[in-house]
């Protein structure tokens, strides 16, 4: 099934803003498309996708659009009296409130827990029109102390994760690294050595550069084999 989907990836038509994807009253505009009379027209650059009656555009670029429940990795940009302002690389800032920290903290103590420049793994608790609120209260969330960070465009995240996590699992197993992919495109890699982490990073960049390709899984396997480290 995964192979099928990958083959289709390679065959997709390019969507150009303003151009007609298909004509017909039976079609409906999905994300990145709009109706113009009888036509469904693209309103974003990307790849055309047909899903039942829906015609949409798969974006290959563009800003991160936060969704509730998303796992994100960000950097503490500032501290206010009741929480931390976190930069997750989105057009808007996100806020981690004091009481979303996993334990009870006094409000004048914030800095000793998370200082400016610290990296954190959080979940989006609530989205607002101009920003989002984060939480750190789930297991596995918290300050990131070790390893390295790499950033990719958030639209490529599904490709890096793969169907049911198959792609990221393939990379994790071959490189023996822990890889946590933030939906905002920030990825945390932690391996037994810098070489292992760079190996994983290389594989991730490989996926991102070839994200339109069909048969990507095979290509990634080859890449991992060719670049294996002792």
């Amino acid at each position, binding site marked *: 099934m995964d192979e099928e989907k990958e083959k289709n990836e390679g065959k997709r038509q390019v969507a150009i803003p303003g151009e007609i994807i298909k004509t017909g009253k039976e079609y409906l505009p999905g994300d990145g498309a709009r109706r113009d009379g009888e036509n469904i*027209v693209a309103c974003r650059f990307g790849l055309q996708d047909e899903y039942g009656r829906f015609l949409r555009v798969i*974006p*290959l670029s563009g800003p991160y659009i936060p969704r509730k429940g998303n796992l994100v990795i960000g950097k503490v940009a500032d501290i206010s009296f009741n929480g931390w302002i976190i930069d997750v690389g989105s057009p808007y800032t996100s806020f981690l409130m004091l009481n979303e920290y996993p334990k009870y903290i006094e409000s004048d103590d914030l800095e000793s827990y998370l200082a400016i420049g610290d990296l954190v793994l959080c979940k989006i608790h609530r989205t607002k029109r*101009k920003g989002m609120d984060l939480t750190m209260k789930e297991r596995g969330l918290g300050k990131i102390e070790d390893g390295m960070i790499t950033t990719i465009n958030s639209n490529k995240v599904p490709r890096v994760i793969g169907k049911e996590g198959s792609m990221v699992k393939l990379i994790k197993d071959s490189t023996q690294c822990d890889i946590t992919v933030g939906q905002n495109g920030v990825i945390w890699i932690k391996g037994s050595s810098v070489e292992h982490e760079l190996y994983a990073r290389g594989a991730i960049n490989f996926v991102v550069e070839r994200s339109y390709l069909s048969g990507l899984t095979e290509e990634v396997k080859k890449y991992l084999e060719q670049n294996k480290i002792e």
Partner: protein
Amino acid sequence: MAYTKRPDGRKLDEARNMTAEIGVIPNADGSAKFSFGDTIAIAAVYGPKTMHPQHKQNPQRGVLRCTYDMLSFSVTERKRPGPSRRSQEISKIIEWSLSPVLDLEEFPNTVVDVHIMITQANASTRCAAINAAALALAQAGIPMKDLVTSVSIGKLDKTLVVDVTKEEEDYKEGEGATDIAMTLMSNNDEITSLQLDGKIPPQALKEAIRLGRAATKKIHEVQVGALKAYIEENKK
């Protein structure tokens, strides 16, 4: 004697040889290069991102901000580095030519910055700039209802021509040279920018606009070609 022969041998309604390329500046969220013959423009898009200073934010939609400048050595006589009054005016024109097709409703309080540089100039620089900017915005994944395509139409004495060069801009015979720069939505008959300098009868101006509309079709093909080539390249 009517103007019939162009110095470079082009037909009256023929644009110069055009090239377009996407993704020329890796750091940018979107970037593109566009050329009309010897006139080359590169554009870089950064955004949407939070707009600073705060008082410039629009709480209802994102804001487009453009800068246009020329490399000091892009022109025959050196242009002092830094923005001039001309480049400031053109920056505004470019903003107005792109805004109508951008949909920034989803991004209130943000700014989308478009920076354009002319690296080599032989007239029609703002047109090349707009064509490059439209491509860069598309590559950046900005929601756009259409692309825009820009072209210069000249009237040399009484003859209308497509895509004016510097030599043609300086034409002095008869009624002299009139330079008309226009931008149209690619798939709709909507004008997003129109500027004129010279001496032209009203009916001829209408004709010039129609000539511009026809000329942008071919230019638009070049823009689309670049976007498609970008995807094809990455498929290899």
